[in-house]
């Protein structure tokens, strides 16, 4: 029955994947033999399933067709190319050439970027690490960013700017969601998290509000995934961006340029509060979940960032008097210059954060190498062997790398 039915099969697979309401997940149903003389495509709620027995026939058939096209030995119209690449990539998302064919289709307008991003999202539901899927996604996003929306005579400049901002915000949210889903599907998913960083670097440069929201919304996630090194690295990235935006090194403005005339923005208490808050988080987690290398690695990073920042701002920060929280509130409620972007969050910022900022709660003691050594010593009593060895390694790291001996 089979060879003649392959074209029909591949068509039905895509009709289902492109349907309305959209499928949100695709998977292979382990089913080594065809049981009945019926289609191997299965649908349950919003999930698309493909019985595994048909894949070994389907894939080589469509694979071969695409390569013949690529060698100009076979003509395929645009719709056929859309269909074939869709089928192929759902089965083998690392097939770079198929993604490239789709790039060409997007470029000539035969395929919408949104539709292509949707395929990527589906592919990631089954293959959350797929490097080629993430790589292709970045190209599509860049293409979207560079493509100017059609000029509407009735729009003012301000409106265009606002609409652009909204579109950007939507794209940003969508990408955060795709990354979050992939991060949940595979532990310490390097590709998902490095994509997430790339998106912020491109779409949210210098946007303090976005960084703060991300820091806040990731708190419960990392607390529930204490082995996820990539998740914690993401927080290190956010902290680094925030310190750069809130209090750049002396002599630079927040966009990194030398500004002799302008007073660079300086929200030192806010920076100190961020670091204290982060160290508190990692201390809680280290105590609650002993023996996790990721947590100790995070501590090293956070303390190092803090230590280096203090060296670049000698004599600044919350050790002086005054109400440090006041400065923090004014700064943190502003977005940075650039495309004004109100990002709607499903979950609100940590209420503790906001209360503290508003109440003018005095900042805790700024962290030092000494306080870090005290933390280590406090833990060494009565801890297990793994925790002990990480604690001692941290102590050694403080002495050798940071350079202030115990």
């Amino acid at each position: 029955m089979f060879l003649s039915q392959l074209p029909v099969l591949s068509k039905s697979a895509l009709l289902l994947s492109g349907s309305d309401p959209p499928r949100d997940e695709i998977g292979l149903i382990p089913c080594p033999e065809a049981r009945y003389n019926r289609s191997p495509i299965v649908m349950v709620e919003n999930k698309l399933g493909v019985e595994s027995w048909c894949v070994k026939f389907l894939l080589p058939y469509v694979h071969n067709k695409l390569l013949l096209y690529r060698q100009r030995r076979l003509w395929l119209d645009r719709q056929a190319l859309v269909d074939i690449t869709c089928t192929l990539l759902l089965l083998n998302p690392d097939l770079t050439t198929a993604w490239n064919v789709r790039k060409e289709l997007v470029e000539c307008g035969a395929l919408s970027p949104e539709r292509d991003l949707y395929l990527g999202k589906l592919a990631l539901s089954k293959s959350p690490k797929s490097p080629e899927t993430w790589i292709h996604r970045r190209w599509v996003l860049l293409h979207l960013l560079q493509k100017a929306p059609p000029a509407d005579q009735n729009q003012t400049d301000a409106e265009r700017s606002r609409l652009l901002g909204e579109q950007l915000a939507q794209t940003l949210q969508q990408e955060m969601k795709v990354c979050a889903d992939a991060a949940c599907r595979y532990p310490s998913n390097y590709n998902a998290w490095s994509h997430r960083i790339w998106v912020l670097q491109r779409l949210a440069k210098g946007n303090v509000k976005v960084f703060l929201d991300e820091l806040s919304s990731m708190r419960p996630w990392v607390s529930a995934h204490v082995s996820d090194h990539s998740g914690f690295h993401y927080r290190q990235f956010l902290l680094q961006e925030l310190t750069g935006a809130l209090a750049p090194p002396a002599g630079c403005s927040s966009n990194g340029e030398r500004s002799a005339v302008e007073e660079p923005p300086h929200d030192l208490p806010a920076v100190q509060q961020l670091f204290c808050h982060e160290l508190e988080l990692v201390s809680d987690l280290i105590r609650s979940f002993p023996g996790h290398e990721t947590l100790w690695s995070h501590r090293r990073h956070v303390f190092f960032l803090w230590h280096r920042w203090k060296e670049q701002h000698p004599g600044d920060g919350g050790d002086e008097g005054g109400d440090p929280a006041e400065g923090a509130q004014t700064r943190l409620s502003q977005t940075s210059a650039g495309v004004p972007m109100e990002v709607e969050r499903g979950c609100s910022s940590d209420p503790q954060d906001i209360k503290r900022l508003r109440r003018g709660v005095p900042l805790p003691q700024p962290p030092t190498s000494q306080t870090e050594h005290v933390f280590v010593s406090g833990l060494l009593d009565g801890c297990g062997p793994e925790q002990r060895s990480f604690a001692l390694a941290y102590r050694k790291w403080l002495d050798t790398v940071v350079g202030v001996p115990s």
Partner: protein
Amino acid sequence: MLGTQIKDVILKPDAPSSLLLDKHADYIAAYGSKKDDYEYTLSEYLRMSGIYWGLTVMDLMGQLDRMNLQEIIDFIKACQHDCGGFSASIGHDPHLLYTLSAVQILCLYDSLHAIDVDKVVEYVKGLQQEDGSFAGDKWGEIDTRFSFCAVATLALLGKMEMINVDRAVEFVLSCMNFDGGFGCRPGSESHAGQIYCCTGFLSLTGQLHQLNADLLGWWLCERQLPSGGLNGRPEKLPDVCYSWWVLASLKIIGRIHWIDKSRLRQFILACQDEETGGFADRPGDMVDPFHTLFGVAGLSLLGEEQVKAVNPVLCMPEDVLQRIGLQPDLLS
């Protein structure tokens, strides 16, 4: 209070403990002989690299003559595109990754004359960006892996001066993290694979002094787990390919003695499959040519006498590089 289980594997007492070189040679020689195999089609998108892995491990084991030289050269020729770059297989699109693999294979066979070398150089040169980084192909993805592919390709062809080396170095150094490691782009997480690419890059461009070797060496040797195996980042499981990425990096920066060699060797040997031949990522898993190469290459770095000496920067037999006259820097 319960003790934490460190993420690791436990080596079984009956795990393989001696090197089964003949079985591995048989495994590689037979690999891909059934080209209709579904798995084989699935991996066609990286075929050129797959061939490089297979041929290199055969050469390291002194068994290269079992492979079909002419068939492979013809295949490679058919994969060079007009732009000069090579694709993974016939009909696929060209990319830097497969351009490097193609050049490496041709070096093994001393057959660079079979292709248009100038065109390759033009392709690589054309992928360098303003900031010194390299795109993987015309579509523009930036990754430090591609910086390595670019300089390795040109080094093998003796044409490094055709790119802006200083700018390329600047970009790679901008990807150095505070822990001494490197990620795929500036601001990315340190990862043993990326670290290998960046240390290899710095070796080929004569810039190893820019590294903090003690700091990086420390990060790298912390990859060793109780089982003896190496992982790529904190709290990941050990994987035999990290016996290459981590070990080669340590060798390049002159700190390979920071690893417990005998426990690592024991782990690598345990990843062999006594029945099918080949190595898997960890004991008991399915074998493949990728892990087979890196298992054998790792053992070579550890001093295994039955295997030829392997170059830690290019993952090719040292005698091949000696023939070309390429001796990348290593720190002592």
